[in-house]
């Protein structure tokens, strides 16, 4: 990236540097360029330290060991009671809530606004080689023995290199970063055996109090699968860390991967561990390392007492400020390796008396890459570079994931499936991980994998009755828009291609969807439609599955882009929200 003087000033202003160093002449000339580089990094890591213990937090990296572009949502719709609350804010509403100025580095990292333009200025985000200098800096400042690195999971899955090495490349990256403790969700989609193998390769610990044996005939019936907690001493204090893996793994992902394991929120046993760690193990501070989701953890904090901090994950929210519920402080550190969260804890007389938190943006252009990290990435990519660097085509507009109902990259995937499978309607999963390709950019095979790299990538084509399709949509809508966060599963709506509909978010369960059209005609409840779907469970309820045309979704999409060379995807959604006026509503459902 070419940074001219004007950009320097803007970067400096965005980081609040001008006041700190006073006067703009500092940034003139070559010497100024060097200075801003140093200042930029120091400002990324600038922090008001508290106490003696520090926890660094990462979540939902989705195997992005290389820097990437990742655009936050431009539509984030929720049940009415949750509109405008952290976990359900985006865009300008987000900027207003957290007092972020447009056009700044924070605005680029945290919101969708002016994304393509700011991407040119600030460059890619994340990457282990850029995360490591932040971690090293904090360890140097605080003393390595006083710092923990906790990982809320969704780390092993999400890129080609993760899929092709069955997670091993990512565990290597975690060891390089120095992950001390982790929990999981997509980790489980490598299957039980592989999960145990990878944990064997991990230098840190994998903990979960909410995964238990589910086989009544096994000797370990109702026994824990993983250690439920870990106790660490940092800064002279005893920290009890309790693990919460994703409670709804067995409904969100195929059951075959975790047959015999049972998941769940299990807040009652969580409470027992909290009490036990306090009374018997005499810990000074309780941390729940969680993959429950940001809004679920806000509910959890109402049900469980005695937890000092919940380090959340799953819903991919960057939350610059902590949420406090009944004396429990809840933090979440974004996704895709975009941030390293720093939590300093001051403990006196066996009690947390003060803390400070900051999301440190992993701005790859402001943080010089660590050589060992670059080498590690190169080592794991090398065998696959030829395949992954193939330019399949280019895109006219912005290709992005996220958003509640529709995104351009999902639309491209849907069009590719429609083109090959010739079905009436296609379903794409509403995952919140993926990638972003800038307007005019090349689409690499690697990018397609970033959107689809799962261990069950098959596109299935089968029959479903209109009535079943409609009920499915209502069922999925209830998982996304339920007023009770405990009954949400933390994803976005499944994307449909070949169809359109309207939705009333605040309508009761089963009555939200209207005006459902397939192929431009109102849905016929009695008619049988041909349906294609990947990444979900829909094929299990379908009939006449065509075994002959099953193919991995990344091959279907790659072929389509190769064939078309240039793709031009509409930014217009095929879903109309009837009771909200904009994509990023503020409290009270106003825009």
């Amino acid at each position, binding site marked *: 990236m070419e940074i001219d003087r004007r950009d320097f000033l803007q970067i400096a202003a965005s980081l609040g540097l001008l006041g700190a160093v006073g006067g703009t002449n500092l940034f003139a000339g070559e010497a100024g360029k060097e200075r801003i580089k140093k200042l930029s990094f120091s400002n990324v890591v600038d922090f008001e330290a508290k106490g003696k213990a520090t926890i660094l937090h990462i979540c939902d990296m989705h195997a992005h060991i290389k820097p990437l572009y990742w655009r936050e949502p431009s539509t984030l719709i929720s049940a009415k009671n949750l509109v405008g609350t952290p976990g359900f804010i985006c865009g300008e509403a987000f900027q207003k809530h957290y007092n972020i100025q447009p056009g700044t580095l924070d605005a680029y990292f945290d919101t969708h606004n002016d994304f393509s333009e700011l991407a040119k200025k600030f460059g890619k985000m994340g990457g282990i080689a850029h995360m490591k200098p932040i971690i090293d800096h904090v360890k140097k400042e605080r003393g390595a023995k006083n710092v923990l690195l906790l990982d809320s999971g969704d780390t092993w899955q999400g890129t080609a290199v993760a899929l092709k090495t069955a997670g091993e490349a990512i565990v290597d990256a975690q060891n390089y970063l120095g992950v001390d403790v982790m929990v999981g*969700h*997509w980790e489980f989609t490598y299957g039980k055996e592989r999960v145990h193998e990878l944990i064997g390769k991990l230098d840190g610990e994998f903990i979960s109090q909410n995964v238990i044996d*589910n086989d*009544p005939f096994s000797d370990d*019936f*109702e*026994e824990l699968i993983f250690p439920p907690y870990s106790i660490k001493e940092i800064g002279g204090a005893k920290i009890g860390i309790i693990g919460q893996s994703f*409670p*709804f793994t*067995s*409904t*969100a*992902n195929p*059951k075959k991967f975790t047959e015999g394991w*049972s*998941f*769940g*929120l299990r807040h*009652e046993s969580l409470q027992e561990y909290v009490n036990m760690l306090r009374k018997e193990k005499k810990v000074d501070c309780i941390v729940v390392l969680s993959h429950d989701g940001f809004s679920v953890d806000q509910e959890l904090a109402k049900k469980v007492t005695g937890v000092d901090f919940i380090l959340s994950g799953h819903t991919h929210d960057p939350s610059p400020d902590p949420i406090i519920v009944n004396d429990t402080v809840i933090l979440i550190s974004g996704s895709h390796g975009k941030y390293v969260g720093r939590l300093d804890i001051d403990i006196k007389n066996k009690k947390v008396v003060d803390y400070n938190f900051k999301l440190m943006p992993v701005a790859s252009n402001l943080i010089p890459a660590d050589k060992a990290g670059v080498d590690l990435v190169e080592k794991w990519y090398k065998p696959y570079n030829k395949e992954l660097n193939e330019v399949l085509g280019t895109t006219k507009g912005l290709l992005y994931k996220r958003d509640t109902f529709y995104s351009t990259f999902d639309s491209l995937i849907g069009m590719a499936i429609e083109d090959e499978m010739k079905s009436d309607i296609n379903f794409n*999963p*509403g*995952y*919140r*991980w993926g990638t972003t390709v800038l307007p005019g950019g090349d689409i690499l095979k690697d990018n397609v994998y970033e959107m689809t790299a799962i261990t069950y990538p098959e596109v299935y084509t089968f029959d479903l009755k209109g009535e*079943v399709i409609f*009920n*499915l949509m209502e*069922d*999925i809508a*209830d*998982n*996304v828009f339920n007023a009770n966060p*405990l*009954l949400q*599963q*933390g*994803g*976005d709506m*499944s994307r449909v291609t070949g169809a359109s509909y309207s939705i009333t978010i605040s309508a009761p*369960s089963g009555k939200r969807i209207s005006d459902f059209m397939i192929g431009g005609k109102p849905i016929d409840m009695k008619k049988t439609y041909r349906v294609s779907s990947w*990444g*979900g*469970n*829909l094929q*299990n*309820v379908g009939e006449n599955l065509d075994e002959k045309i099953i193919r991995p979704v990344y091959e279907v999409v790659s072929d389509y882009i190769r064939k078309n060379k240039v793709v031009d995807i509409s930014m217009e959604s095929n879903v109309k929200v009837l009771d909200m006026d904009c994509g990023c509503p503020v409290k009270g459902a106003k825009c």
Partner: protein
Amino acid sequence: MERRNFIKSMCAASVVAAIATPSSLLAKDAAKGKNVLTYDAAVAAITGGKAATQSDKIKLTVPEIAENGAVVPVKVNVESPMTDADHVKAIHVLSTKNGNARCADVMLTPMNAKGYFATRIKLAGTQDVVALVELSDGSFLTTAKSVKVTIGGCG
């Protein structure tokens, strides 16, 4: 592993009458055949029309979201001294919307030592699971919790 052994012994000694209900995630009209018993009729058959008191003496443990609607784990734990004079006589597990609402009945005596029962039931869709408990004095206690049954599919 006291708890595990206890659960195992409970399984061995159980007098479970789990009534199979044909269930499907999507079938709204499950079980219109012979095996039909509405929730109200099932409660009336158990209580003989006596009122059941809502009680937090019953601890009903069910998942918020069923991992599998065909095997939903249910645990009922009733606070009781389990003496001859004061004990849990029966624990009934019901569902509000299954074709046959009566899922399991278990009879207890003071010899059971605990007013505890665990089983798995089928649920034909999102609904309440109800524990209905008969005490030795002939009175009834009840509590309910909602369980969501969904095809899922997010991440």
